[in-house]
């Protein structure tokens, strides 16, 4: 064998040692929490507009508790993946927003999240707004709601100068589906070729539009979360997607397309892109949530001055929708060593000052409805939030009645095509027989739920389809904590 030159051999050896040496210790200590620098509290969320509200809060907290908060903002698409991977490698931050895709109940069961101790003051302020199965589990508080549930994604936002050109009074936006069609027709006549832009490529958002429109057409819903698995007919407990109201909502959107009112590019836009296309004047009308005002204020201030807002159009002109009790946004990791500090932070989240700061960030409306009075926000945002306060009701949530419902929904497999897919398929012309497709979706969901119920009961749970039935609930009512 050829003699390996000494120098080379040495170099090789050194490289080998270096490689081995770098591999001696596990980098994340089991059960530990990721630490950027040893002293700070790690906080991950996906609410980029909340920067100023949270920064103020964190500064104050650091002043009091002497612990710095290191915040990382993810976009929602990568947040879920980041959380999954972080949990897999024991790197969960102390606080995170729940984009696991799993219902809160199962996070609690698994110990992924931990209960926190709130201050007495905070507990007083939260009276009546904490729901067992949503915020508290076995009486222990896990999270606090910061946003109001009185919101939807289907407010009508309009470009007033284009409306004026069409001879419409911008302050008086149409409230009915027919009025909406007339407005579109007049807009086309006055030169706005395609008056309405929608994020058709964004199937989740289209699904929200559909649910809002179906509710405004009289559909009563019980809701857990916003995906199809958790949306049921409150009166029967069955999946509602083939109902009259849903079909009407589909038909309404479809008619806008067949009449040529939709900006053709819509088919490939998500909500963010659709909004900018609308803001650049290509279309006059855009459906979006209250945060639209915040985005406009941040990026298109000049354009915002000419924007008007009203509720979602509806057959009866009332535009009533409903949402279940608001989820808590922030959760404390089960692995966190800083539960006490997290409890203090969460207590701070309930203060009126924070609600005001939240309102001023103009994202989702704050849980405290009075915050808006003291917040300095553009009139457009307050108008949007006031509209929502008036027209969004509290829907019943089966998971509040029986937390095991959460486990059932966690157990259910996704059924594809889901409501968003079907919306996309029908509006894009890939589905001809809508009724058949929706019925099939309903049936598959029901079968999947039955299977999941069996699994949960088999594991010692106690849950039945009856938990989904709220016979007494009527569309347009608030289903309060005392009604369960």
């Amino acid at each position: 064998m050829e003699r390996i030159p000494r120098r080379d051999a040495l170099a090789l050896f050194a490289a080998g040692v270096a490689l081995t040496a770098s591999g001696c210790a596990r980098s994340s200590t089991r059960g530990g929490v990721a630490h950027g620098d040893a002293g700070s509290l790690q906080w991950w969320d996906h609410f980029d507009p909340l920067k100023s509200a949270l920064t103020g809060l964190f500064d104050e907290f650091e002043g009091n508790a002497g612990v710095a908060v290191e915040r990382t903002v993810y976009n929602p698409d990568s947040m879920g993946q980041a959380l999954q991977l972080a949990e897999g490698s024991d790197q969960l931050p102390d606080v995170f927003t729940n984009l696991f895709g799993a219902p809160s109940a199962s996070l609690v069961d698994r110990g992924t999240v931990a209960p926190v101790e709130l201050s007495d003051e905070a507990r007083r302020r939260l009276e009546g707004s904490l729901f067992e199965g949503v915020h508290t589990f076995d009486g222990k508080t896990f999270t606090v709601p910061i946003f109001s549930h009185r919101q939807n994604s289907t407010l009508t936002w309009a470009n007033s100068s284009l409306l004026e050109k069409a001879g419409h009074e911008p302050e008086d936006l149409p409230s009915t589906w027919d009025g909406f069609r007339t407005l579109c027709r007049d807009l086309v006549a006055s030169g706005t070729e395609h008056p309405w832009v929608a994020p058709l490529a964004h199937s989740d958002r289209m699904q929200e539009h559909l649910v809002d429109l179906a509710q405004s057409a009289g559909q009563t819903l019980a809701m857990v979360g916003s995906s199809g698995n958790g949306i049921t007919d409150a009166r029967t407990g069955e999946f509602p997607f083939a109902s009259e109201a849903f079909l009407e909502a589909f038909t309404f959107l479809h008619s806008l397309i067949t009449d040529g009112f939709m900006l053709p590019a819509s088919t490939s836009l998500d909500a963010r892109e659709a909004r900018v296309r609308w803001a650049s004047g290509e279309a006059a009308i855009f459906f979006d949530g209250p945060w639209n005002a915040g985005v406009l204020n941040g990026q298109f201030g000049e354009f915002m001055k000419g924007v008007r807002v009203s509720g979602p159009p509806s057959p009866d002109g009332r535009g009533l929708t409903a949402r279940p009790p608001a989820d808590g946004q922030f959760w404390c990791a089960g692995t966190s060593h800083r539960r006490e500090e997290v409890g203090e932070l969460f207590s701070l989240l309930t203060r009126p000052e924070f609600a005001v700061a939240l309102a001023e960030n103009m994202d989702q409306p704050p849980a405290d409805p009075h915050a808006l009075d003291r917040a300095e926000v553009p009139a457009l945002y307050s108008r949007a939030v006031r509209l929502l306060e008036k027209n969004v009701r509290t829907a019943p949530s089966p998971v509040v009645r029986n937390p095991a419902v959460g486990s059932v929904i966690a157990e259910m497999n996704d059924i594809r095509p889901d409501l968003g897919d079907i919306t996309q398929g029908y509006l894009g012309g890939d589905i001809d027989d809508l009724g058949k497709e929706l019925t099939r979706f309903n049936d598959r969901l029901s079968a999947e739920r039955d299977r999941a119920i069996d699994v949960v009961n088999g594991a010692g749970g106690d849950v039945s389809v009856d938990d989904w039935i709220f016979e007494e609930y009527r569309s347009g009512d608030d289903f309060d904590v005392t009604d369960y």
Partner: protein
Amino acid sequence: MTSMSRTTEPEAAGAAPAAARTVPRRRRPSLWIYVFLAPTVVLFGMYTVWPSVSSLVYSTLEWRGLGLERSFTGLENYRRLLTDPLFWKSLWITLLIIVVTVPLRVGAGLLLALVLNNPRLPLAGLLRTAFFVPVVATTAIVGIVMGFVLDPSAGPINEVLSIFGAGPVDFLGSSRTSLWAVMGVHVWKWLGVTLIYWLAALQTVPRELLEAAETDGAGPAARLRHVTLPLLRPFAVIIVVLTIIETMQIFDLVVTMTGGGPFFSTLATEVYIYDTAFGAARPDLGYASAIGVAFGVLTVLLMVVLTLVMRLAQRRQEQR
């Protein structure tokens, strides 16, 4: 897999006996051979083979998201796979993408490389860069630009179409055209990589040989046909395989441009795997792994069949 190793065999095997003759008997460099292989074997084992084996294991688990309990379900995920129309649809879409874009990329890449390889071509360097740059462009922003280029109402392509009285075509928004639009943008973005492969391959064509051929009176076409192309042939196999593999992992672009829609029309398998593992409301790592494994196995099978067919064709040609 064995068949693939055989495809690359010709040039490798061709060289090996030569090398064996080359290396004088008094040297036995066998230890060095293994030292040279070690980094690749060790690292590749850690970062590719191990994850592959893990995927195989994962695919037999019921595993909803990381950290959640994993329980063994045997072949349940595969049973589900067989009756999952989306899986089969995604396979078909991936196959279609490969069949359409790979020949385009390899062919156009070669053509471009042949022209751009001429060192006397003015500005060749700049031109090469121009065709290469899309490769490095951030996908998120490419999605936006291409939205404008393909815009059904005001996009330049539709304006050109309207001159001929055609269109407007809703390239990205209609399930009839979306896949083709994505493939077009894919070719645009990744042609540069194939171009690089070919440029590198062309460097192995010795200039003396071309000179000699020219002295012998061969024109450019004859030189191309009798000198350059035969020399490029073994590279062609590698380049085609590499391009196929890159194409199989078409992912970012689809996600930014169409998100797999409209109505699943661009749901390539890699996108579906990813969706199932991370994107879904309910992540399902076990099932995603099963899709991945099945996809890998089917691809290898396809490659085996292709190689066999190619060999058969070759043999027949030789017999003639």
